[in-house]
C-alpha cells in the first residue's frame, strides 16, 4: 500500500473517477426499460432491470463523493496540484518491473494463447519471466525485456497482417514454428549475454528447465487426466496427442 500522502492524492483522483463512473452507470440505467414494455412484459419500476444498477450507480456516486470530501480535507487535492507542477521524472526500477510483468502477461494472454500452441506459449512466458526476474541483473533486465518486446511486436505485426492465416493454408503449424524460432532465439540471445557469468549461467539453466518441466507436467494433466482441452493445440500438443493415443 502507498504512504499516506500518496494515498490521499490517489483518493482525490479515484474519487472523481468514481463519481463520473457512477453518473455513467445512472445514464446507462435510464436507457433500460422502466415503465415501458420489453419482450411482452409491461414493466413497473420495482421489477425493472434498471432498478439494481440505479442503486449501484447512486451508491458509487455517494461513496465517491464521501471519498472526495475526505481527500480534499486531508490535503489530497493540494498534493495532486503539487505533483502536476513537478517535472516528469524517469520511471523507477519498480515501475519498470511492473511494466515488464504487465507486458509479459498481456502478450501471453492476448497474443500467444489464442494463436500459438499452449505448450510453447507457456514455455515462452516462463522462460522470459523467470530468467528476467531470477537473474535480477539491471543491465540484462533492460536488454532481455527489449528483445522480448521486439520479438512479440514482430509476431503481432505478422498476425495483424494475416500472415498466420495465409501460411496456415500451406502448413497449419507455421505460427507455432514462428513461436519456436522466437523461443530459440531468446534462449540463444540470453545465453550469449550471460556467457561470462557462472552463477548467471546456472540460474538461466534452472529457468530453462522450469520452463520446460512445467508445461510437460501441466499439459498432459489437464488434457488427459482432467479432460480439459487446451486453448490452442498446435505442434507440441498434437505430438503429445499422437504419442498418448498411439500408446492406447
Amino acid at each position: 500500500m502507498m504512504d499516506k500522502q500518496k494515498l490521499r492524492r490517489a483518493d482525490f483522483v479515484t474519487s472523481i473517477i468514481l463519481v463520473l463512473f457512477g453518473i455513467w452507470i445512472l445514464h446507462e440505467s435510464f436507457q433500460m426499460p422502466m415503465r415501458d414494455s420489453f419482450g411482452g412484459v409491461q414493466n413497473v419500476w420495482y421489477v425493472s432491470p434498471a432498478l439494481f444498477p440505479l442503486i449501484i450507480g447512486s451508491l458509487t456516486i455517494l461513496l465517491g463523493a464521501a471519498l472526495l470530501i475526505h481527500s480534499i480535507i486531508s490535503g489530497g487535492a493540494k498534493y495532486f496540484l503539487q505533483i502536476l507542477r513537478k517535472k516528469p521524472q524517469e520511471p523507477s526500477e519498480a515501475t519498470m518491473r511492473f511494466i515488464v510483468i504487465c507486458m509479459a502477461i498481456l502478450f501471453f494472454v492476448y497474443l500467444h494463447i489464442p494463436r500459438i500452441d499452449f505448450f510453447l506459449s507457456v514455455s515462452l512466458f516462463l522462460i522470459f519471466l523467470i530468467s528476467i526476474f531470477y537473474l535480477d541483473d539491471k543491465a540484462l533486465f533492460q536488454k532481455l525485456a527489449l528483445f522480448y518486446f521486439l520479438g512479440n511486436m514482430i509476431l503481432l505485426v505478422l498476425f495483424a497482417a494475416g500472415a498466420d492465416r495465409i501460411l496456415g493454408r500451406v502448413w497449419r503449424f507455421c505460427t507455432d514454428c514462428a513461436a519456436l524460432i522466437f523461443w530459440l532465439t531468446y534462449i540463444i540471445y540470453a545465453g550469449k549475454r550471460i556467457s561470462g557469468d557462472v552463477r548467471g549461467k546456472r540460474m538461466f539453466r534452472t529457468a530453462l528447465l522450469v520452463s520446460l518441466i512445467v508445461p510437460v507436467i501441466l499439459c498432459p494433466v489437464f488434457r488427459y487426466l482432467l479432460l480439459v482441452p487446451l486453448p490452442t493445440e498446435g505442434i507440441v500438443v498434437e505430438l503429445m496427442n499422437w504419442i498418448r493415443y498411439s500408446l492406447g
Partner: protein
Amino acid sequence: MFILDQITAFFQQFLVLVSNPLNILAVFGAVILGIIFGATPGLTATLGVALLTTLTYGMATNTAMVILLAVYVGAVYGGSYTSILVNIPGTAAAAATALDGYPLACQGKAGKALGLTTTASAIGTFIGMLFVVTLLPVISALALQFTSFEFFLLALYGIVISGTLTSRDLVYKGWIAGALGLFLSVIGRDRLQFYPRFTFGYSELDGGLDIVPVLIGAFGIPQIIQVLKDKVCIKKTEKLQKILPEFREIVRHFSDIVRSALIGVGIGAVPGIGEDIAGWVSYGAAKNASKHPEKFGTGEVKAVISTETANNACIGGAMIPLLSLGIPGSPPAAMLLGALLLHGVQPGPMLMSDHPKFVLEVAAILLLSSFAMWVVGMLLAKQVVKVLRIPPAIFMPFIAVLCVLGSYALGLRIFNLYLMVPVGIIAYFLVEMGYPIAPLVIAVILGPMADENLRRALMVSKGSLLPVFTRPVALALFLAIVLTVLSQTRPFKKVVTEIRKKLFSRKQVA
C-alpha cells in the same frame, strides 16, 4: 430420544463404511486430490466436485458420494495452504484466512498456522457432521423462513460486513470495492426479463461474468505483480517439527472454535450462501469478541482458527438444505446435487423415505473425511511449507500459468482470460490504493442473488418495503446492516465511547 436413536444409527453406518477398505482408500485419495484442487488458485471445490462427478458416474452411488464429499472437504481445507503461504487464496472460502495466515507465514510461523488450520478444519467438519445427524429437521425449518427480502438483505449484509472488516485505510473503501463488485455482477442479461445490461453488444457478456476468472484475476494477478515487482521474499519457516498443534492451544481457542463452527453451520444451512461468507462472518465475530481486535490482520492465530473452522463447518450446514429440501447450501453443494440426481437419488422431503440411511451415510462420510483430512493435512503440511524455499521469481510465474489454466478450465472460454487480466490489473491498483479486494469478489458472487431477490420481493409486495420491518428475520438483518454502517461513523463511535465510559465509571463507584 430421537437424537440418541440418530446417533446410534449413525455409528452403525460409520462402522459399515470403515469396514470396507476400498472406502478408506477412496476417502484418502479423494481428500489428497481435493487438497490439491483447493490449494491451486483457480481450481475450486466446485470445479473439483464437477470434474469428479463425470469420473465417478460409472461407480456405485455410495462410492461416488464417498469420493465427491471427500474432495469437497479436502478442497475447502486446501484453500488455506496458498492463503497462508503465498497470500493467494486457493478458493474464495480461504480469502479471510489469508488476512492473518500470510502475516503468520511472514513471521516464520507457517508450520504452526498450517497445523492449527488443519485441526480447526477437522473440528469444523466434525461439528458440521454432528448437526447433519441431529438437527437436520430443525435447521431446515428455520431455513424455510427465508424469503426474497431476507435473501436480499443477507447478500447485502455479506458485502457490507466484508467491506467493513477488510478495509485497512478508510472504511468506505471497502464499501466502494463492494459497489464495484456489484456493478460487475450486473453485467449480462438480467435473470428476470433477460434484458442485456452493460454488455456493449458483446455476446460473450450476455451470460454475465464467470466468478472464477474474476476471483483469480482479483486475488492472483495483484499478488503475482506485487511479489515480482517489489522483490517480496517470504521468510523461510522455522520450527517445522511444531506442525502438530499443542493441545493447550486448541483448548485455549475452544470458544472460538465452537462459535465459528456454529456460525459455519448456520450460514451453510441458508441456501445459496457458501463457505466464503461463513469465513468472513466468523472472522468478524472473532474480531468483535477479541480483547485485542487491533491485532487482527497482523498474524492473529484466533482469526485463522475462526475462519477455517467456519468454512469447513459450513460443509455440514450446506448438506442440511441440500438433503432435506433439495436446495444446495453452497456452490459445491449445487454440483453435489447434480451428482446425486445423476445417480438416481432425489434429495428433498422424500429422501428419508426413499433412502432412509442416506443422510446418516453422508454424515459418516463427513466424519471419515474430516479424519482423513487431518491425517493427510498433518503429513502434507511439512512438505507444503517447503514451497517457501522456491525463489518467488520461479514460483510466481508458475502460479501465473496456473491462474491462466484455472480461469480457462471451468468454462473452456478464452474470453475468461481476456476478462481476468484487466480485472487483475485494476485490482492491483485498487490494492495499492488501500482498497480491499475481498468485498469486490464477494459482491460479484452475491450480486445476482441480491438483484434477483430484491425485485422478486418487491414484485410480491407490489413495491412496498414494509415487509422489511414486519418480518423478524428481515428486520434483524436490516438492523445489522444499519448498525454495521453506523458503527463506522464518528458520532456513533463517540456515543458508544461515552456509554462505555459511563458504565465503567459506575462500576468503579460501585
